[in-house]
């Protein structure tokens, strides 16, 4: 389960922010997981409290937003949100498409005191 490594990586990013900015309390952390990021919501939610133990983050609420895959067609320039990563433009059937969303794996925001 690589989500534990991912959660540890996130906690370490946040802890350096917390220390640098003298944060007293963290209420909430919001992250975005893209469908093509290689990370999954449930295992990440399971791993987060383990990684956060002993830090200010251990009492913080984790909010996970899922970003679906969005493709841009190079032919007709239409943008499509996909449930499955089938790289074909539904408007013109072109396979010349580019993934413009869905690979995100980012800390979006943190609610702090």
């Amino acid at each position, binding site marked *: 389960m690589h989500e534990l490594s991912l959660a540890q990586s996130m906690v370490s990013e946040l802890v350096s922010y917390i220390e640098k*900015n003298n944060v007293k309390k963290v209420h909430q952390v919001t992250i975005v997981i893209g469908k093509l990021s290689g990370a999954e919501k449930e295992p990440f939610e399971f791993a987060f409290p383990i990684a956060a133990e002993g830090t200010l983050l251990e009492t913080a609420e984790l909010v996970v937003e899922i970003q679906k895959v969005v493709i841009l067609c190079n032919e007709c320039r239409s943008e499509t949100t996909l449930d499955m990563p089938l790289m074909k433009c539904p408007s013109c059937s072109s*396979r010349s498409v580019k993934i413009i969303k869905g690979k995100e794996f980012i*800390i*979006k925001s943190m609610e702090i005191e």
Partner: protein
Amino acid sequence: MCKDCGCQEGNEKKFFGHDRDIHNHDNHHHDHSHEHGHFHDGHWHSHDSDHEHNHPEGHHQHDHSHDNHIHGDSKTVMMEKNILAKNDEYAHQNKHWLKDRGIVAVNIISSPGSGKTTLLEKTLDALKDKINCSVIVGDQSTDNDAKRLMGKCDCVYQIETKSSCHLDAKQISEILPQVVNDNTKLLFIENVGNLICPAAFELGEDFKIVLLSSTEGEDKPVKYPVIFSDASVAIITKTDLIPHLDWDIKKCRNYIRQVNPGMYIFELSSKTGEGMNSWLEYLAKLVE
């Protein structure tokens, strides 16, 4: 531990090919400028920097009401920070370090048993005396793969990942100066056998290659779309077995195209050599 780079000389890493006492850290690469015109994805083009960037954390007060919770003097800071920022930083350093030395690096990913090591054995045999290669091989345990590849190229380095299911960029950065030499042109990184986790960790490779053997389901590309959409090259291995199996290569190609229409696909048998020539020609072109 090296005080300059923090590289561990831990006993979990086994090393073949160089005298590890000749461990020169002069080449280390802790500062780098990030540029965008590098080749990648196996297609030798400059790219349009659509990869993630770390932005300085800007924080600003939000005028949100506290209807749902009472948090006193709380504020929301917008982070927009890549969770794998540290790994990506090492990966960028690795990429530039390799590029500065004219070395092409490929990250080879597949399920366990798809034939990564056998393909490397045959590939290194064929490239011997033609292209100087080095190999980093990752497994949870044992140095069996490194032993199989020993003597076939300049250097083979085994990383035992123990409890981890993937290689990460820091592990690679710690050993790069030992794994390559002045003549190295091609670095193969054989990742841990796993189609999920290695896809999330950039190592600094130029591009990823994913293997799929004819003994696996044709629909693996759609079952594991993350790696199949991220890799630039797919290799269908064990093609010699297809006549004995109820397995449709056209179906498999279609599934690959569904998740990654522009993917290069090689079809080969490491055992019989069928299809190996175009793969070897491709590698030769990469390092031209």
